[in-house]
């Protein structure tokens, strides 16, 4: 049960469900419902089931919701379906979140723990006996995509880094996220190099986790704490744009912390309204004729997958528009709903098969368009697509970095 008068009890008292007209559009688009009968579907567990909850959540199958947010995105009546589900899940799990969910929702903890022993950690993550043991003890599926540990973090690089030339434009605050700090170090470095190439003065404050994985695992208290701390950290330059290469974490700052967990702090509102996903930021420059277009051609056709969390920002597909500017490059939007990882959903033993089935249309598209190379903005989705297809999957910044002749 919730603390009375908490945001959860208010939201569980659920303003938006009144708008549901049962049209079922959400259920036709839900990627989980399409592949398994174990999930009752977003309309069922959202606006319908919510009428039967008064702080107590009895329908445990709602945990089959992957929180991808497709339902909220497609609802023509404005019902916050995914948000209702997330809040109900948090209520259900409060006080008894499994150890696994506590661990996998702390990306920076995992990164920090693996960094000093990166080769060993990678060996363990690719050892079938070790993975079998992880599945048995923790419930992490033996075949699930895992990040690659690095001996050097982004911060290690940043400390030694000096900008190539004096800035010619203003300041930008860079938000790399925990995965960008420990696992996707190259993406972070490339983003900084592109921004500096464009003449920005890049500032990277010390920064922690946005709390998204905790939120999606129902650990609201911890998630709120993290997102508040992060908002303070990113607020260092009150007037500078905040640019991020971690597209899902941007969603957390832009609206999920407010819509799902009721965080209304002014620091969050200020950061959330100023933060831009890097493709969104660069496309905005291009739209104002402020982006140098001296790109070297890249002869390639590659599939692009828009992560669910990015779609939830309601800004279209800026990466697709941006990459069109590079000569020779053909980017094909895979137009798939979800890759099936949904943050940490697809690594869980009981949900792995569902996640794989959800991702299958995307995997097939990738194999069809370019089996070796694909593009996606979010780390966990990249790991999922790479593991399932064997393709190299990169952040869109990879192409800009290359086209500007930076690497």
């Amino acid at each position, binding site marked *: 049960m919730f603390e009375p008068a908490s945001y959860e009890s208010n939201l569980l008292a659920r303003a938006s469900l009144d708008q549901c007209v049962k049209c079922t559009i959400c259920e036709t688009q839900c990627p989980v419902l399409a592949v398994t009968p174990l999930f009752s579907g977003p309309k069922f567990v959202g606006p*319908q089931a919510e*009428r*039967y909850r008064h702080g107590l959540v*009895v329908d445990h199958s709602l945990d089959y919701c992957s929180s991808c947010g497709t339902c909220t995105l497609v609802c023509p*009546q404005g019902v916050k379906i995914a948000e209702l589900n997330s809040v109900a899940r948090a209520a259900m799990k409060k006080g008894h979140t499994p150890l696994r969910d506590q661990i996998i929702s702390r990306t920076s903890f995992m990164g920090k723990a693996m960094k000093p022993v990166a080769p060993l950690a990678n060996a363990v993550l690719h050892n079938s006996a070790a993975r079998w043991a992880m599945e048995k003890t923790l419930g992490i599926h033996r075949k699930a995509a895992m990040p690659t540990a690095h001996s050097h973090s982004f911060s290690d690089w940043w400390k030694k880094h000096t900008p190539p030339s004096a800035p010619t434009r203003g300041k930008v605050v860079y938000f790399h996220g925990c995965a960008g700090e420990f696992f996707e170090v190259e993406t972070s470095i490339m983003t900084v190099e592109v921004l500096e190439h464009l003449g920005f003065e890049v500032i990277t404050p010390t920064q922690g986790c946005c709390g998204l994985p905790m939120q999606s695992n129902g650990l609201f208290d911890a998630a709120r704490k993290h997102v508040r701390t992060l908002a303070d950290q990113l607020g260092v330059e009150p007037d500078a744009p905040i640019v991020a290469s971690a597209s899902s974490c941007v969603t957390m700052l832009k609206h999920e912390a407010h819509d799902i967990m009721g965080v209304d702090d002014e620091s969050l509102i200020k950061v959330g309204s100023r933060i831009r996903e890097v493709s969104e930021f660069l496309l905005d420059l291009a739209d104002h004729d402020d982006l140098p277009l001296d790109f070297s051609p890249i002869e390639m056709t590659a599939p692009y997958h828009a992560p669910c969390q990015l779609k939830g920002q309601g800004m279209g597909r800026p990466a697709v528009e941006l990459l069109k500017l590079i000569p020779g490059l053909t980017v094909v939007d895979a137009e798939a709903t979800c890759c099936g990882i949904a943050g940490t959903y697809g690594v869980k033993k009981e949900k792995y098969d569902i996640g794989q089935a959800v991702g299958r249309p995307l995997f097939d598209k990738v194999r069809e368009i370019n089996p070796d190379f694909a593009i996606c903005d979010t780390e966990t989705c990249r790991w999922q697509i790479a593991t399932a297809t064997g393709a190299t999957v990169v952040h869109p910044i990879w192409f800009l970095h290359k086209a500007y002749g930076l690497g």
Partner: protein
Amino acid sequence: MKKLVTDVVVIGGGTTGIGVLRDCAMRGHRTILLDRADLAQGTSGRFHGLLNSGGRYVVSDPESARECASENAIVSRIQPNAVERTGGLFVVTPADDPAFGDKFLAGAALADMPVQEIDPAQALAREPRLNHGIKRAFLVEDGTVDGWQIAWSATASAKQYGGQALPYHKVTQVHHSNGQVTGVAATDLKTGEEVMIDCSFVLNCAGPWAGQITRMAGLPPVAVVPGRGIMIAMNHRLVNTVINRCIPPSDGDIIVPAHTVCIIGTTDHKVDDPDHLVVPREEVQQMFDSGEELIPGFRQARALHAWAGARPLIKDDRVAATDTRHMSRGMAVIDHSQRDDLKGLITIGGGKLTTYRLMAEHIVDAMEEQLGQSHPCRTGDEVCPGNEPGHNYLVTHRLKDREADRMTSPIICECELMNRSMLVDLLKQNPLDNFDDLRRQLRVGMGPCQGGFCSSRVAGVACEEGVIDATRSTGLLKLFLEHRWIGLWPILHDAQVRQAALDEWILHGTLDIGHVPSPTSVERDPVDDAPIDETGPTTMEELPPGARAPQPATTTRRRTRAPRSQAANTPKETK
């Protein structure tokens, strides 16, 4: 003609009559109950669902309050499945006089009613949507109760003792000779058969219709003053505690969280004919305004359905006949052997659903007194069948049930979570049921879409299972939708208009319900067929163009709902 013989005939299948049936049967009298409609289809199914703590009456009518306080506990114990122990709050809003709270506390002490004054902050912590300006708050033992569940489980108990309930049997005459009741004549409305029941006693529990029954016995009618009150069900529970305004009884002074909805009530207007209860739009607005006082933003919440019920108040000379709210809600037992020199007829009136068991006890005591007998009443001691002692209803129950069987039986009514096996089981058990009969048992069609999605599925399943043929099934479907419309029209605005528009597109545009086969005459329901309003349209099609959502231009549309002139002049259906 069918002939039956019994000791006692109870007329009126509301909760009072059913309580009397149970009490008579438990005391060893052979008893048959008759109602012209379904059980609890009248006043017992048209209230707000409050299981009264007595709080509403502590100042104006302490004796009623005392009865409520004790019967509340008894009903919770003997029919736990029908009762949700929500608790209740009496709150003093910024517009109200805080001094009434002192009278409230004093009255509660006199009536032995449990009450606890709490800090307004505590009340807000419990119900965050409450008006944040409340000045005082009192916690009482209000609960919510399902009138139909009360009726059925009490009937099941009566059956165990040999009692018999005959719904859809309309009484046509009460026979007597030499100052003694001898029998009752009735018509079985489902089959058309005449039924003659020999008996020596008739207990008139017809509530607002009690006067019509005494007239059938050739006596001057008992002066009943039906007090019409409207209720509006909102789409979901804005509160989980019964919220009362701590003021003298007035319009719109209560919000009751009942099942998946919350219900605001009510008004009180004297009417002449309990079969003609309208839901005037000014009273609907009045309810929304009152809701705003208790829960700011109430007007923005979605209204689902409105209905009106008739209070069965017996005329009391102590107050003016037009001021029914201030009339004693205590019960009145009229022994016609004293009033009209007719033995074997007793009429009961007044009271509240919460005290139905006690009313039954009083009337059966009065009957036994006339008969010179004295059997102890045991209705308060025994838990009714189908109830799990000590386990009250929770709003989560149906969701929990569907969670358990979600892989085996598909959902038919999505709003009220009725699955196919629930429907098929009941259809096979009661093949003569119309869809409103099914609704009262299963809640099908009572949620946000008001039957727009599920009713055609019900018709299809009924055919597929071979219980009802296609023609009758589609006829019943149309009738059901007409009845839903009666309660929709008065509150149609905002989200519910969008729902109604979508429902119409599905039913007309896709299913072409105007052209499906239907019988030349569907058996009309004696109670459910009601005019909408003096001014209301009978279907969405008749709304003025500006009031309607745009519709696909290509669909052919025909009116399917009965014109008002065909509809019988009877009251509105509930939630």
